[in-house]
């Protein structure tokens, strides 16, 4: 009997994204540009995060017509975002044949207390986190992949760095922690003891962990790889730059050659103007605070 939607099939799929770049796109044309540049997957959205930020109001799952069009256009996997806790949007995306669902703080949450029980779905989910507790809670709910949240739509890498460092630092702590201290660590961080034990054994999160929220240049992408993430999501950073095809290609190459400064210099030379950046202190809405 073929077994579909098993944990191995879900987390194994996320493993295939490793050392790759997943790009936000809002049209089939943009999806094509992303595929041509070497993206490992695209994320279908109505608006990139920087436009969501400007527009205000309620941000929802992308239009069905747009998602269908993108599914038809590219051969690489297609992801789409649903609102936190929006069981119906998630079921709709699953029925459309979307390859991965991002239960995302970039959209306006539909539930102020609960995330989706992601074990109930055959399609795998990715979720955001700022720290180890948030990461392990999402994995307890069935997330097959994590991404550090950063602050989407800012073109400012500082929050992405903060969140990646926080998760990596906690993993280093757990690795060196005597077993007697694990239970209290789990309690203090709101995480399951079983998963904390697993982190200690594996020396890493039990699922793939990408960086997101603020990557705007090839150097930003390389920086996140230096901090130990498995790959990067780029939201507004590509299609809000002056020359998206060039920027997209360069970021893909930077994720491959993150540990080779000479290559990075060559890659960064001709990418055009990056997206305009925002200072995090001036933000009215901090998307990263959504999710519980």
């Amino acid at each position, binding site marked *: 009997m073929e077994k579909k939607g098993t944990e191995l099939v879900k987390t194994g799929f996320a493993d295939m994204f490793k*050392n790759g770049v997943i790009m936000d796109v809002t049209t089939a044309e943009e999806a094509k540009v992303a595929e041509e540049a070497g993206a490992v997957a695209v994320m279908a959205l109505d608006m990139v995060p920087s436009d969501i930020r400007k527009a205000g109001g309620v941000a929802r799952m992308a239009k069905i017509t747009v998602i269908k069009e993108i599914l038809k256009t590219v051969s690489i*996997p297609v992801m789409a975002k649903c609102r936190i806790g929006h069981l119906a949007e998630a079921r709709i995306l699953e029925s459309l044949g979307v390859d991965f669902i991002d239960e995302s703080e970039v959209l306006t949450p539909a539930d102020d207390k609960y995330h989706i029980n992601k074990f109930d779905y055959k399609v795998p989910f990715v979720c955001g986190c700022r720290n180890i507790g948030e990461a392990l809670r999402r994995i307890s709910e069935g997330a097959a992949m994590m991404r550090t949240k950063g602050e989407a739509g800012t073109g400012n890498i500082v929050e992405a760095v903060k969140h990646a460092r926080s998760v990596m630092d906690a993993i280093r702590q757990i690795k060196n922690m005597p077993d007697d201290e694990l239970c209290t660590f789990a309690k203090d961080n709101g995480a399951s003891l079983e998963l904390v034990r697993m982190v200690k054994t594996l020396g890493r999160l039990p699922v793939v962990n990408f960086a997101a929220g603020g990557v705007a240049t090839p150097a930003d992408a390389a920086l996140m790889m230096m901090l130990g993430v498995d790959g990067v999501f780029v939201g507004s950073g590509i299609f809000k730059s002056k020359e998206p095809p060039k920027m997209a290609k360069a970021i893909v190459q930077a994720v491959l050659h993150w540990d080779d400064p000479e290559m990075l210099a060559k890659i960064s030379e001709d990418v055009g103007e990056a997206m305009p950046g925002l200072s995090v202190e001036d933000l009215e809405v901090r998307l990263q605070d959504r999710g519980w």
Partner: protein
Amino acid sequence: MLNNYMPEKPVGILSMQGAIQEHEQMLHGMGVNTLRVKTPKHLELISGLIFPGGESTTMIRLLRFTELIDPLTFWIKKRCLPVLATCAGMILLSSKIENYPNQQTLGLLDIQVIRNAFGRQINSFEEPINILNYDHPFNAVFIRSPVASTLGKEVEPLAKHENLVVMVKDRNIVACSFHPELTGDTRIHQEFLKRVEKWENSQNLEVRCS
């Protein structure tokens, strides 16, 4: 205890993109050293090469960018370097992709493939399958997997699922459309190391290529 061959030189893992670490972990668990192949000079330091799973469209672009296509062809075709390819690796090495004929391939493995032959992720699955000369079934994880739709004369089918060919051998290349690196079952990697042993021990090119 495992009793696999310990190569003199490390085993290379083509490291453009994808599940590189999973193959590393499996080989390290078998006591074998590995080297991430990112540039042409790395090919001179290894005794076998693994093409991991990931996105074939991403990998072919990065192979072009890093100018690895000609050196790979030289080492695999002229020097008969032993190769194990999984999923996207099978697509990369094939001679043609039936449903995406414009996507470039390396043309080193004499098969045509169909990409995503079982459908999108929602139809990805695991299933124990029979592999030629293996004494018990192998739990095969198929993730948006390709199949070999047309086989060249010299190509031997090693496994099928629902009558579709999912594992092949073509001289120095073994390719499977599923992911042994995700399962902990080392049999396919052990067979690969046997080919590495033969390659390391033979000076004669003709023997190496047989």
